């Protein structure tokens, strides 16, 4: 069982959360070329090791978190609130 530290609610079981995938993606401008959209929608670094990812505390405070977790060991090394709207975050 993953134990995820929610900045608002404390450490909670993974079953309270919904996975949101890669947390490093930056949404292109609406006018960006198709290649940029292809990259954003489909391509992933998919690292074996440290992975920055999004989780939503769906059965809790419903806030989105950005979590750093190792995909080999499942160890969680950091979790922080996500500034909204995260899709428009500047790199």
């Amino acid at each position, binding site marked *: *069982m*993953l134990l995820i530290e929610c900045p608002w609610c404390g450490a909670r*079981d*993974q*079953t309270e959360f919904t*996975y949101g*995938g*890669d947390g490093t993606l930056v949404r292109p401008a609406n006018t960006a070329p*198709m*290649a940029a959209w*292809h*990259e954003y*929608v*489909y*391509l*992933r*670094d*998919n690292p*074996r090791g440290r*992975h920055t*990812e999004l989780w939503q505390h769906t059965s809790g405070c419903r806030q989105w978190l950005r979590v750093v*977790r190792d*995909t*080999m*060991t*499942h160890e969680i090394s950091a979790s922080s609130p996500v500034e909204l709207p995260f899709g428009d975050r500047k790199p």
Partner: protein
Amino acid sequence: MDSGIVQKYSIISLARHALTGHRNWPRAWRDPEPKSAYDVVIIGGGGHGLATAYYLAKEHGIANVAVIEKGWLGGGNTGRNTTIVRSNYLLPANAHFYEWSLKLWEGLSAELNYNVMFSQRGVLNLAHSDAQLDAYARRGNAMRLHGIDAELLTPGQVHEMVPLLDCSDRARFPIAGGLLQPRGGTARHDAVAWGYARAADSYGVDIIQNCEVIGIERDGGRVVGVETSRGRIKADKIGIAVAGNSGHVAAMAGIRLPIESHLLQAMVSEPLKPMLDTVVTFGAGHFYVSQSDKGELVMGGDLDMYNSYAQRGNLPALEEVATGGAQLFPIMTRLRMMRHWGGVMDMTMDGSPIIGTLPVGGLYLDGGWCYGGFKATPGSGWVFADTIAQDRPHPLCEAFSLERFARGATIDEKGAGPTPNAH
């Protein structure tokens, strides 16, 4: 078979070895030191890689091939699946490809002179609403138009076929009918890897275990070899067949893939007397079950739902699998589980595999198998060998190109969109 297997397995060889207490069987394949160069290097010694090497040697006359495996043969997803074989797909590209694979399965034990225990016990998808049954009828009709067997069953026919299913109105998700593919079934997964290994080895293919690829060497946009934990190996053509780790290996050649690696678990129960002679899938949740020859119920369900390369999962996913099982088969509530395990899936952005050429010359990919790589093993090896030999996609895998995502030509069987854990 016309290969160079020195000693064919037969009732005569069995009887002859019985006389000496079965102590003198020759090893099934060699354990060679890697040579410094090959015509083709296949990365990954699972079913797909070994099948590719076998068909390269047998169908294309390319036997100067090495299969490089970081662990042991079939220790990855080939030995971690729930052994289901089927071709019950809606979309044409999937239907044609998986049906060709199923046809190869039907002759595989004889082809390889190795019993892969392929058992065409049928695959039954349960429907739990009229709308779902309509969708199954549509898929069944599409299958029949593609020349694939499919039968739509009433609840009564389902109950007759699988008496232990809860077919009552009191079930949480009452059964509205089912779609049966009678030619589907199960196979012995380890035997598939061993059978292909033995047959490929007999043609002179070198199978090199405990040898991890740590780099792909390139020169001027083409591959020239691989760097491994046991030294450099030169090759002008390199095939990647490492599903689960495709993203990791493709990154060695500077390629990003539309894939996330996810964890999928499965488990077996204590052995029971024969109670289930087909494969049943739950339509209102994610659960599938069959009974092994040893009597264990083999079952699986959904992903753990987060990126992982760990090959071990957590209990919430298993609890959900058990819940699905108990809803279908009330007797399962008192069943004890014996073992569970996890494998790493290449989850693509449309739920379909990626087979074909890559933007680097001489580099080919066979991956992105999501939940469904095992049943594809013979077909995948067949088309991938042809793709490598001819340096262009085999007609059956043209639609599965990596470029389909950039062109918007995705093959989204479930209509789930670019959310890899939803397929």
